[in-house]
């Protein structure tokens, strides 16, 4: 009875108010079963994050940062039950499609938002390196992660919602001076066919002068309609080096939203490769704060979309301290009625002198109905800086096309070769050859005219 009355009240309110209140109801119902419920700082963190969601409302196209990306029709999925979801029985063999040839890697597999110990394989981890499930960390060692999570001022409702509802993910800790040779492959698989939402939280703490490669890989088996809302927090201590791959290969009906927040200390190096192929709608926010002198970051990205796919990349690099260097290069190939959004913001803070920043975003539109909204965004509050940025949108070069055809390549093959060459420029920056090959294969298959790949990759 009471519920019905509430519904009437909601009907008269704005739609989004109704939705966030429903979301809050869900939060209240599930919070006791979320990991870390016994810890007061976790409860406080979740509650204040949820309050932020309610006061801010879920994003809509009136919000500047979401002007071109309309999530409205997918939001209901966030209300679906995700905690007690029975997951499909995933076997070892099913994972081969998502593995990188003969790459010797450490592997953590998450099925439908939960770490599967059975499918994970963590052999020969260097001494002192910890790779754990975040759910376990919340349950058994909340003190260890507290410093990195408790005092978060996140921007954006999805990041706040992630903090409120985070359930599991990967915890990686590397002690000072340790070099982890094997890449850590974190495979997040959606296996359930039902609508569900997963609030994945990963935490990477790389010690001073440590080195590691982390592959955050989102994929699906079958017809998933999952709504993934992931958050990855990275603490990169002085002199640490992280190669961070984000491969988004979600199913065609999935929604994949996530943010990566990176704190860079002195002389650290952060290299991000963000590749988006799948999902009905995907959105990635990367926020790098260069808080120590001499830090360097490079953000590379590639999106290849078609049909009615929607892909959105927002990046923000804060040059807080002097003498830091940032490089950013995103490329996109957009076909069909797909739409891509790129927004790259660089903020050079007061006194961040000797900042060296360069950014580019190049797009290839393959059809009349494909669309790109691209915006480089520079805010400079220091005097002695070097900043360059630019965005391009184009079609295939007719001269190049004719040249290839005049040498005997069919029109389709020539088009494919040119599109591939355009996209591959991003993939050539990938330092793990097996990962590069894996992505090149997918990229090639995504192109509109299938052709032979071997040889081209030479």
């Amino acid at each position, binding site marked *: 009875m009471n519920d019905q009355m509430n519904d009437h009240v909601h009907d008269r309110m704005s739609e989004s108010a109704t939705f966030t209140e429903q979301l809050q109801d869900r939060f209240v119902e599930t919070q006791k079963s979320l990991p870390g419920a016994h810890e007061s700082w976790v409860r406080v963190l979740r509650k204040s994050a949820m309050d932020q969601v309610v006061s801010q409302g879920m994003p809509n196209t009136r919000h500047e940062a979401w002007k071109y990306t309309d999530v409205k029709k997918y939001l209901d999925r966030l209300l679906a039950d995700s905690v007690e979801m029975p997951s499909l029985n995933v076997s070892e063999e099913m994972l081969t499609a998502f593995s990188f040839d003969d790459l010797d890697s450490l592997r953590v597999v998450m099925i439908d938002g939960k770490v599967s110990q059975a499918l994970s394989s963590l052999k020969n981890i260097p001494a002192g390196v910890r790779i754990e499930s975040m759910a376990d960390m919340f349950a058994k060692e909340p003190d260890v992660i507290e410093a990195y999570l408790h005092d978060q001022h996140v921007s954006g409702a999805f990041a706040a919602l992630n903090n409120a509802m985070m359930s599991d993910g990967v915890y990686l800790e590397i002690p000072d001076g340790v070099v982890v040779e094997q890449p850590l492959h974190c495979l997040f698989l959606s296996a359930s066919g039902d609508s569900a939402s997963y609030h994945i939280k990963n935490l990477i703490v790389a010690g001073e002068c440590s080195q590691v490669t982390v592959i955050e890989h989102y994929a699906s088996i079958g017809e998933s309609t999952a709504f993934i809302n992931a958050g990855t927090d990275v603490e990169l201590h002085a002199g640490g080096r992280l190669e961070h791959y984000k491969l988004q290969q979600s199913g065609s009906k999935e929604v994949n939203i996530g943010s990566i927040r990176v704190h860079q200390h002195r002389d650290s190096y952060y290299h991000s490769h963000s590749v988006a192929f799948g999902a009905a709608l995907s959105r990635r926010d990367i926020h790098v704060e260069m808080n120590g002198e001499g830090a360097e970051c490079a953000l590379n990205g590639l999106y290849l979309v078609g049909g009615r796919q929607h892909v959105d990349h927002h990046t923000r690099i804060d040059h807080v301290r002097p003498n830091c260097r940032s490089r950013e290069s995103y490329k996109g190939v957009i076909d069909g009625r797909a739409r891509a959004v790129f927004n790259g913001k660089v903020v050079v803070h007061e006194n961040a002198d000797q900042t060296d920043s360069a950014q580019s975003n190049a797009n290839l539109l393959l059809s009349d109905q494909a669309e790109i909204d691209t915006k480089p965004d520079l805010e400079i509050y220091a005097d002695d800086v070097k900043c360059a940025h630019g965005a391009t949108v184009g079609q295939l070069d007719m001269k190049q096309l004719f040249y290839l055809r005049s*040498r005997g390549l069919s029109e389709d093959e020539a088009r494919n*070769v040119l599109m591939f060459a355009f996209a591959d420029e991003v993939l050539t920056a990938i330092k793990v050859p097996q990962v590069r090959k894996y992505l090149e294969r997918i990229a090639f298959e995504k192109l509109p005219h299938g052709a032979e790949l071997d040889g081209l990759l030479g």
Partner: protein
Amino acid sequence: MLKIENLYASVAGKEILKGIDLDVKAGEIHAIMGPNGSGKSTLSNVIAGRDGYEITQGSVIYKGKELLEMSPEERAWEGVFLAFQYPVEIPGVNNTYLLKAGLNAKRKHMGLDELDAIDFMQIVKKKADLVELDHSFLSRSVNEGFSGGEKKRNEIFQMAVLEPDLALLDETDSGLDIDALRIVAGGVNKLRSPDRAVVLVTHYQRLLDYIEPDVVHVLADGQILKSGGKELALELEKRGYDWVLQEATA
């Protein structure tokens, strides 16, 4: 081999070729000379099948078939090759890949088996040596960062690999020093055979010191104003083109 009759072509509404007649027989080498802007590249491009030209009249018969009805790749498979005046750079596309794809597509069209990687590499290396192209160029992106002369040599290298029946060289000699010129000429002379024909577009007599043409044509303002033997080239070298134009209007 190639018979062009009364060919008219325009670009963006502007008439550029104004009734070209040309008859090139197998085994022959023809030189086409003429002032800048007279339509030499346009003619080469139309024969190779580049988009953007409106053919308003005429025909281009090659080995008994109408070329104008074929796609550029079909022309390549049938043995037509154009060495571009300005070869385009194609970053990210491997030189060797391009040749392998092109040659195998042509072989397939001819009903031949595709070459395996080893046989292909042998051919490619031999041809690269022929035009004195360093093997490091094989694995580079097509023309990317090549100097002007390297681009031209790469064109001749591609020609040597693809072994066309009709080779069109559009000012391949421009901008080459004397050594490079000799290499280019060597490549063309190697190709020379009773079954093949070559059309050389050139500004300079000096290429014709190395490649002896059977026929020399003067193309001006979209028309072939005069044709003659190799001595015509020498005369053009000495007297320029004006007298041909005057003779034609007289």
